[in-house]
């Protein structure tokens, strides 16, 4: 059977926001419009030839993107928890609906959720004083958001970078709170060095595992030690380095992954969100990723 990999992004994309325009809207007493920034991000991802794209997460960093609209959260220097965390309004749904309208038919949309444990560890808790309860309330809120996203997206991706530093014993149950019974495929993205938690990761209740194999190539060796039949999204270009990987380099890297995971390599992507890269670099990396994808698929 021929290999087929999809190209994907993880979440964020670097778009510069013109604050003068935002103020002009304010002075003209017009509602703030964010659509031009979504359009720019979507344009780059689709023009690069990526098949699974996001809305670019241009509104906010990935923590505030969610905590800004959840009950019980207050934004200061960090997010402060001042009451019970609850979902009360769609968070990312309106942007996803707008993004979907911009997409060619063959391009899929990812609904990206910042993971409950990452939200928990990034907040200052002045209410719960119980990390586990807070994490599960975040998970319940994200589950509601995921349910609202189902109609509009092709994949739900949970971004849990904190897992690579600290994996709670209830991590599996936490992720399951979001993913159980969802009618769309799910992906868990954990960047950083996950070599110490691979046995737990391979049991996670998601369809695809996503990790930063490019910045941490030793993960290939560690994964070889564990039998893993999970579908994989292989981080194939770095998100923390402005050097653009060549197409050949990406193909060689993904072939290493195929040698280990075989047909389970279903997606190739940047190692993480691209927010911190210059836009031209981020775009070129996606472009090379897309060309590499075509080569790997025999194109």
């Amino acid at each position, binding site marked *: 059977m021929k290999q087929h990999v999809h190209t994907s992004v993880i979440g964020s994309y670097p778009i510069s*926001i013109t*604050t*003068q*325009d*935002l*103020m*002009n*809207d*304010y*002075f003209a*007493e017009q*509602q*703030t419009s964010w659509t031009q920034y979504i359009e720019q991000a979507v344009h780059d991802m689709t023009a690069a030839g990526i098949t699974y794209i996001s809305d670019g997460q241009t*509104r*906010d*960093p990935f923590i*505030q993107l969610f905590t*800004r609209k959840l009950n019980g959260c*207050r*934004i*200061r*220097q960090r997010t402060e928890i001042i009451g019970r965390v609850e979902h009360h309004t769609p968070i990312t749904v309106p942007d996803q609906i707008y993004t979907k309208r911009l997409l060619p038919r063959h391009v899929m949309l990812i609904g990206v959720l910042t993971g409950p444990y990452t939200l928990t560890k990034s907040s200052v808790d002045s209410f719960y004083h119980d990390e586990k309860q807070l994490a599960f309330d975040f998970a319940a809120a994200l589950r509601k958001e995921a349910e609202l996203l189902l109609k509009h997206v092709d994949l739900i991706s949970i971004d849990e970078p904190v897992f690579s530093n600290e994996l709670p014993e209830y991590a599996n149950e936490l992720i399951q709170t979001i993913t159980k019974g969802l009618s769309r495929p799910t992906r868990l993205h954990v960047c950083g060095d996950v070599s110490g938690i691979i046995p737990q990761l391979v049991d996670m209740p998601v369809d695809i595992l996503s990790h930063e194999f490019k910045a941490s190539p030793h993960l290939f060796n560690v994964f070889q030690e564990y039998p893993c039949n999970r579908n994989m999204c292989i981080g194939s270009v770095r998100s923390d380095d402005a050097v653009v990987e060549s197409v050949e380099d990406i193909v060689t890297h993904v072939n290493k992954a195929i040698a280990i995971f075989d047909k389970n390599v279903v997606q190739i992507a940047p190692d993480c969100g691209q927010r911190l890269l210059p836009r031209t670099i981020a775009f070129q990396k996606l472009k090379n990723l897309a060309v590499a994808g075509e080569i790997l698929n025999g194109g």
Partner: protein
Amino acid sequence: MFSFTKEQTTYDISGISIGGQPGMYPTVLFGGLFFKGEPDFEDAKRHIQTSDERSKQTGVPVIPDFFIRKVEYIEPILSFIEKAIPKKHPFSIDIIEPSIKIQTLEQLASRKLLPRTIYNSIHIGMTKEENEALRTYTPEAAIIVAFNPKDKSPDGKIEVLENGAHLLETGLLELAHQIGIEKTLIDTAALAPGENSGAAIAALPVIKEEYGLPTGCAIHNVVEKSRWLNDFPFAKKTVDVASNNAIPLFGGDYAIFGPMENAELVVPLIAWQDILVSEYTENYFGISPVASHPRRKLLK
């Protein structure tokens, strides 16, 4: 009516005191001029004279707020300020376009007017060039507009003051501090109905309690955008004038109203409200009004 636990800053801006605990100083009014059409200086002079008279009668200070829409208006408006505004009396310049702001700052400096200037305003849209101009030609005081396009609630306004809401590298307060502006007035950024318009009023006590800085807004802009009021032309003006009442009632220190011709109505209204606030805050919190307060001037 209430008092803040946070110590409140009071600024003397060219002879006018602004800030402090509710009931201590009269609410300061900024009266807008030249928002529409060509600047009519005769008209403006008349309205400024009337507002001065009402101000003297009541004790409510009125600072003219000059809107400069075009480059060619800079020179005549600044010349008018030199001639028509009493020496040492402060005024504010209200400009949207950054290039006009920069040219106006240069001219204010050359006319030695900066010690009387309240710069309206600093906000997230400040350009690098405007920032540099402000460092060179630093006005006496500046209004900081706490508009956060991501979050229009009081929390969002604090976020943009505190850290720039990830739209700037630093918060607006730190930005003003880095420029060297020592007297900063917070504007809670009133928005149209449907855009959390009430948040501008709710944010007054929240921001005063957080920073202790003089805080106010242009709440009458919300009335301007309440299109349904066009069906009630008789009431619209009353609502426009009355909207300013909410500011001292919620602990705010200043109101930006417009046009200046409304001073005839707005000044006594605010004097009335200031008396109401002062009577309670002195009785309950022991905040004594200053000698120039409407309560001292009007209740003998």
